[in-house]
């Protein structure tokens, strides 16, 4: 394996400055740095730093295997660039172009350096091409990973967001439901409501469906089951947020909600809950 003495390493060192200039020109021609998301100076710094770490890593460990520990500064640098590109809203191909734009300048210098020896040139071009491809793939991989991390975090945040059981009054709990109800999270939400009823000794639970855009038979079934479970525990349940269009749709679907107390909005439900608990609300006239 000639990777230890590869001419690529030599070229990277000898022409660092020229490579930087050519690369930046290439990037600019490709459109990076023109839309104001990355400034020219920032791009310059990034490119310069990358060529620096690339040169160092290739000198100490060769260009055959970028998974070697000596290459870790280069990998870390690319991870950093990918992360920044994700937050700046770049697509994966735009991010990968950052690395792939280095190919042409590098090939140009290689051919100048090696000259007319076609066999050596072909070999070294192949080595360089492989190196750039590996670095590009690494960039895409870490770009993808950053994106996945963002999605996972948002999913977790959403699960947490969707289960707030609020105490409205002594003995009155409310569960404002938001979004899609026909997934596994409905189960979590309902379980936490039942648990809170036990924990607080509440007698009335209000499920508010104002934030649920569609009430189909599956959602209705979930609601009915929850109402039944709450009743079995000796508490009572009011469903609020039944808007006119939802009411009409439920009628056409043929879902029987008779026997379930429903209200158009949360305020009406709370008023009813207070009345049932024996409270009267009066205005203190000024």
């Amino acid at each position, binding site marked *: 394996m000639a990777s230890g003495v590869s001419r690529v390493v030599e070229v990277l060192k000898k022409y660092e400055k020229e490579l930087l200039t050519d690369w930046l020109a290439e990037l600019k021609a490709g459109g990076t740095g023109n839309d104001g998301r990355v400034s020219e100076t920032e791009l310059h710094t990034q490119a310069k730093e990358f060529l620096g770490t690339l040169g160092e890593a290739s000198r100490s460990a060769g260009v055959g295997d970028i998974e070697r520990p000596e290459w870790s500064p280069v990998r870390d640098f690319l991870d950093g660039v990918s992360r920044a590109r994700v937050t700046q809203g770049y697509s994966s191909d735009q991010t990968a172009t950052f690395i792939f734009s280095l190919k042409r300048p590098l090939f140009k210098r290689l051919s100048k350096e090696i000259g007319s020896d076609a066999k050596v040139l072909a070999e070294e071009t192949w080595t360089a091409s492989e190196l750039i491809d590996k670095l590009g793939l690494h960039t895409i991989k870490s770009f993808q990973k950053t994106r996945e991390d963002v999605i996972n975090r948002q999913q977790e945040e959403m699960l947490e967001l969707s289960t707030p059981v609020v105490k409205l009054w002594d003995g009155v709990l409310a569960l404002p439901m938001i979004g*899609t109800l*026909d*997934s596994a999270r409905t189960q979590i939400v309902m379980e936490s409501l039942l648990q809170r009823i036990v924990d607080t000794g509440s007698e009335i639970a209000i499920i508010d469906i104002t934030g649920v*855009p*569609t*009430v*189909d*038979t*599956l959602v*209705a*079934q979930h609601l009915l089951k929850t109402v039944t479970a709450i009743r079995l525990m000796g508490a009572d349940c009011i469903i609020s947020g039944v808007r*006119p*269009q*939802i009411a*009409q*749709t439920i009628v*056409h*679907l*043929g*879902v029987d909600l008779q026997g379930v107390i429903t209200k158009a909005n949360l305020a009406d439900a709370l008023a009813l809950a207070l009345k049932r608990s024996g409270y009267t609300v009066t205005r203190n006239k000024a």
Partner: protein
Amino acid sequence: MAVTKSEVIPIRTEHDIVVARQAVRRLSVEAAFGLVDQTKMVTAASELARNTFIYGGGGTLQCESLLEGARRGLRLTFTDQGPGIADLSLAMKDGWTSGSGMGLGLSGAKRLVNEFEIESVHGQGTRVTITRWK
């Protein structure tokens, strides 16, 4: 009757039901349906998309925006290559289900739209077409 716009949505996962609902809502708004009609169409789509996913083992939803004279409408076609429905009249009965639902999906969807057509061949799949006019 002219079809002004047509798109196909795959129904392969539970999440696709949500995607289908959102697409139907968007097209209902484009067809200038009122809020009640929008909700009816979206709910019917939700029922049928879930049937396609659960009983049909997945399939497709074709949405077509229609124009007939000055009247605008939306036609949805749910197709699957599942086991099909053995007894259609039984399946259309309120409260009857071969699964664990309420047994109101098919019959309820029919009541929510203007036109309803169902074709099913045992062992070959099911196709349900619904249309709602403004």
